[in-house]
């Protein structure tokens, strides 16, 4: 007889409301049917009533965790419709805020993940370091997690000298701390017991399953949109894609830790190259045309499709978020793991249901 239990939506180990109907045989999951819709608000319809500027704030609230990158991607997509030339300085500030966003998001994930395998003190440790990032972000943008800094045409706040000093200080103090927790994630015996070999996807499988971000890179696919021509500023900053070959939860963890270092490096390089000048160009008129914009969010690649029809409202906005791309891989990874591993496997894609359902 199989065990059938509901898992979520209100479940202490799930940070977000998603529900799984788990079928378990002999302590091994044999079937998992996800149930979505607990955070479906209907944002793609919402643009009918909000103008393209206001939509920025809606997009930022697709998800509160990588909110900044949602805003940046959306504004960049709309800028494509306008064919607008954006001041360099604004782009650099966007990168810095975006990478700050990634830092806090990955630290957050590492913490929740540690909590997923019952390692409370490690969870607290990660979140303690995350607060340093948040403090800096708050002073740059005025808010802790929903930064609202990017707007169509540029950014709304400039980086002050003070901000830059703070950023550099944060980078310096964070780096050794990340090394500390890296040691735990990579070497701790019990952690390895739980992660190594869990929910392995081969390189090919991860690629074909359409996964994105660390889920994809954890299986050895060196694919990161930050390297594409869509937003070439990253190339100037010496960005390098982090990959791990393992393909299991352990590999995905390593990728995320490597990306923390990468983000710190990007922030430092961006600061050193930060050009002077305006932070925004005025935009006139209403958007027309179609555009696709992709950026790399903490959880992976996001695809924005915008279509304007010459009115102040967009005609269509479609967001393919990374979690949306990663959820099908859960269907592949869950069968065969133990019940105790379900939270880890669910967390390993860093699920963000609110962006999946919008």
């Amino acid at each position, binding site marked *: 007889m199989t065990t059938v239990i509901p898992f979520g939506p209100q479940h*202490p180990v799930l940070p977000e409301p998603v529900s799984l109907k788990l079928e378990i045989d002999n302590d091994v999951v044999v079937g998992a049917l996800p149930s979505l819709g607990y955070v479906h608000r209907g944002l793609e319809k919402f643009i009918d009533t909000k103008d393209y500027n206001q939509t920025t704030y809606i997009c930022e609230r697709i998800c509160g965790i990588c909110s900044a990158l949602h805003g940046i991607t959306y504004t960049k997509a709309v800028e494509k419709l306008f064919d607008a030339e954006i001041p360099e300085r604004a782009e650099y500030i966007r990168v810095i805020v975006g990478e700050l966003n990634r830092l806090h998001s990955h630290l957050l994930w590492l913490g929740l993940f540690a909590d997923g395998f019952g390692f409370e003190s490690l969870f607290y440790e990660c979140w303690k370091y995350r607060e340093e990032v948040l403090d800096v972000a708050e002073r740059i943008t005025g808010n802790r997690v929903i930064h609202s800094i990017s707007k169509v045409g540029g950014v709304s706040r400039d980086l002050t000298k003070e901000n830059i000093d703070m950023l550099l200080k944060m980078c310096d103090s964070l780096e050794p701390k990340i090394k500390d927790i890296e040691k735990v994630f990579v070497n701790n015996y019990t952690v390895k017991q739980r992660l190594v070999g869990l929910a392995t996807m081969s390189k090919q499988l991860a690629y074909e399953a359409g996964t994105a971000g660390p889920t994809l890179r954890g299986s050895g696919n060196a694919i990161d949109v930050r390297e594409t021509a869509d937003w070439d500023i990253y190339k100037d900053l010496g960005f390098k894609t982090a990959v791990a070959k393992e393909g299991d939860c352990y590999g995905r963890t390593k990728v995320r830790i490597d990306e923390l270092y990468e983000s710190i490096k990007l922030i430092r390089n961006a600061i050193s190259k930060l050009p002077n000048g305006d932070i925004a160009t005025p935009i006139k008129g209403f958007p027309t045309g179609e555009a696709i914009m992709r950026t790399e969010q903490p959880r992976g690649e996001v695809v924005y499709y915008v279509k304007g029809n010459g009115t102040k409202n967009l005609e269509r906005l479609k967001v393919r978020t990374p979690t949306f791309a990663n959820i099908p891989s859960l269907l592949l990874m869950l069968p065969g793991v133990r019940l105790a591993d379900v939270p880890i496997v669910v967390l390993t894609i860093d699920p963000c249901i609110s962006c999946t359902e919008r």
Partner: protein
Amino acid sequence: MNMTDILIAALVIFVAPIIGCLYAGIDRKITARLQGRVGPPLLQPYYDVKKLLSKDNMVVNPSQNFYVVVYVAFLILSLLMLVFRADILMIIFVYTVSSIALIVGGMSTGSPYARVGSSREIMAILAYEPILILYALAIYLLTGTFKLSAVVDASTPLLVYTPLIFIAMIVVLNIKLKKSPFDYSTSHHAHQELVKGMLTEYSGPGMAGIEIGHFYEYVFLTGLIFVFWAVNPLIGLIISAAAFFFVTLIDNITARVYWQWMLKLSWSVLLILSIVNIAFLYFSEATIM
């Protein structure tokens, strides 16, 4: 039973939960400090119990709280037997009653999480029960009797001849206190795949009963460790305090493991450790009397 015995019994019944409560408070405080935070007040477990007692008694199965009463009653009994230096084997059996009462109580609610938690906890029995009895056996081999009074009157501390069993007992302590890495059936922190495991459906007074039971259990388990150096109460206390600190420390530096892993650990490493120790005692015919 004379007057002093009754007095001692009453004292144990009333003082043990206070000590247990303090222990729980200290444990939470140390944990908090290990995690770099201030943590709750020392008396937090007491506040929790008081709060729980004043809450609604919400049940899914009208008889679920009966098992809590059995759990607490048998914990008190095993503690009393420990204090009165009864037969250690007997104490372990009585203690098993309380563990089983809690497990059956969890299962009796019928909640899927509680049932999964309980079946994991049953597996924990498989892991620690043999060790506990081997511990009793070591006492017998060293004193010629299962009665604990012999250990107290002994000339040499138990620990001298039972270092390997002591190690195994620390792990048992870890399992019994449901601390990481063995907090898979229920845990004091709610963050696990089974919600609150065995105790998911307990609320208000029922949960308070369980917490009080935990207090007794803390004291009882301290007692078991204390026996290792019962000849000198002070050292005994220090050793049990150190053991508890160690368990708290381990709690904070490990991830939760699978119950399968625990079974493997116990039936390979711990059992072999204990059996080697027992074999040594058997062949060396050591005695501590």
